[in-house]
């Protein structure tokens, strides 16, 4: 069964782009358009990896991550930050990797492959 990547980003254009790449690389996807809805989606979809934007209108990335990491069941799901903020490395230190938009597609897929296969 294909591994599932969850995309969290408030920009629908970017969600579509990430879905395109991940599908083409053989992954399944699910999505949340805001940090506030994300935890419910995680519980329902049980993704293998999450890509996380930082600046979102309702709840921003780091707060979602804190909630996620406290979750007993899903707390260990690997997270990759993809954000327009420069210096986003420091926002979530336990993230597997941090990418600044616009990101390098091949590099992103490489990191995902190394993390979940």
């Amino acid at each position, binding site marked *: 069964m294909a591994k599932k990547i969850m995309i969290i980003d408030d920009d629908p254009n970017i969600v579509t782009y990430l879905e395109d*790449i991940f599908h083409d690389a053989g992954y399944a996807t699910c999505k949340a358009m805001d940090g506030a809805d994300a935890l419910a989606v995680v519980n329902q979809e049980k993704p293998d990896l999450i890509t996380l934007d930082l600046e979102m209108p309702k709840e921003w990335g780091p707060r979602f991550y804190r909630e996620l990491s406290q979750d007993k069941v899903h707390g260990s799901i690997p997270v990759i930050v993809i954000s327009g903020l420069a210096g986003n490395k420091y926002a979530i230190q336990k993230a597997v990797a941090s990418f600044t938009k616009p990101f390098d597609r091949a590099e992103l897929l490489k990191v995902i492959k190394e993390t979940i296969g």
Partner: protein
Amino acid sequence: MHDFVVSEPLVIIAQDAGHGKVLARILTEHGYQPANADYGDALATVGVVRPRLVVLGICDCMQGHEVAQKIHSAFPEVRLIVLVPEGEYRMGLDFLEEGASDFLFKPVSERALRVALDRALNALEVKEENEVLKAKNKILESSQQLCRQLFDEVPCYISVQNKDRRIVRSNRQFKLDFGACLGERCYEVYKHRTHPCPNCPVEQTFNDGLMHQTEEVVTTRTGQQKVVLTLSAPLRDENGEITEVMELATDISQIRELQDRLTSLGLFIGSISHGVRGMLTALDGGLYRLEKGIANQDLSMAADGMERVKVMISRIRNSVLEMLYYSKDRDPNIQTVDVQSFGDGVANFVEPKATKHDIRFQKEFHGVLGQMDLDPETISAGLVNILENAVDACIEDESKERHFVAFIVEGTHERVSFIIRDNGMGIDRATQEKMFSLFFSSKGSKGTGLGLYIANDVVHQHGGTISVDSKVGQGTEFRVELPRKRVRSLQQADGMQEDSLHSAHTSQV
């Protein structure tokens, strides 16, 4: 008088050697160092001894005159005392006229000779002292002149102020830009204030005797604003008391302007960079679909990709254009517009906000309307900004029952004026002077300090002016005047642009 002279060299010239020796002996007793000479070797002896005093005994009048003249012309500084035959008063006067300092009748008494020599020495000393004084005076004069010149020509405003903050002296540069304001108070002249400025450096220097530094915005007599760096230093009297303080103000407007522009550009780029990064990523997404559609010969996917690319390119384009506006490389997009519908458009933007706050919004059109040339986007943004400020001024004002904002458009054949009048809280003079500066905001966190700066900027780009008339508690009137036809040369020639900038800061209260 000298009772005893210490080793004053002296030459005695006498045809009668015996006579000369007697004189020499007497003068030696009085501390002189006499050297004897006859008429023949007189000049040579004076040349060797270089005395200040020469005693010349006269036997032969003609020869005596000759020797006296030679000594005068070779050694003009030498004082000559002539001993003339008894009763030869006229001869004595002749010698005086030729430059001798004194004459005595022969046979000369010891006392008479001593007195004459003493007087000659005294006169010499007075003369020498006089010369030293003259030389000192000259140095003093030239250093005074130098000080004056430095004071006047130094490229700063210098004012000397007394304890009342009244200007007691000022340099040329100061007089040029602020007028000869002797006796007026510093804060009246520089800032049109009625009270001293807070943290006045001059006051601090009066209190602690130290130098103090501040940065101030001052207004020249032509209404031009300057950012100055002020430095105050104490001036003390002979008892060490600080009686006056010197204030030196250096114009740093250009540096500040550059700094403002860089800061604004930095802030702006910072604020849009997140958005631009998102757009670029979405652009990548569109391209990805386009490429995939082409590769898979899936036309609908390619078309979808293309559509995304187009949308993103147009968003990025707008952001870049905005950025260019801030970096001043943008040319105004001048269009010919209908004055009435342009005015209606501006008013429609603001009217709902006014109505919502129960403020009566009045729109009036007078005079020649017709058409005019302007960049509708930037000018309407500027006018909307001023109108929104007017609405805010009414909202903030709690002293009146009813408020209004009037937007009046008045046209002549040459110009169109947009007048924005309100009966809100009004603007004090100090704020009026600063309000066109970048990032100056009187609204705290509600304002960015960009609005009026940009409004001012675009009006100048159009060769127009903004003026403001306001009374605290009564209301404000902004007047934006624009030429109906844009004069190209006006905004192209830098100097002219600067002139229009100056006039725009002129505020009438």
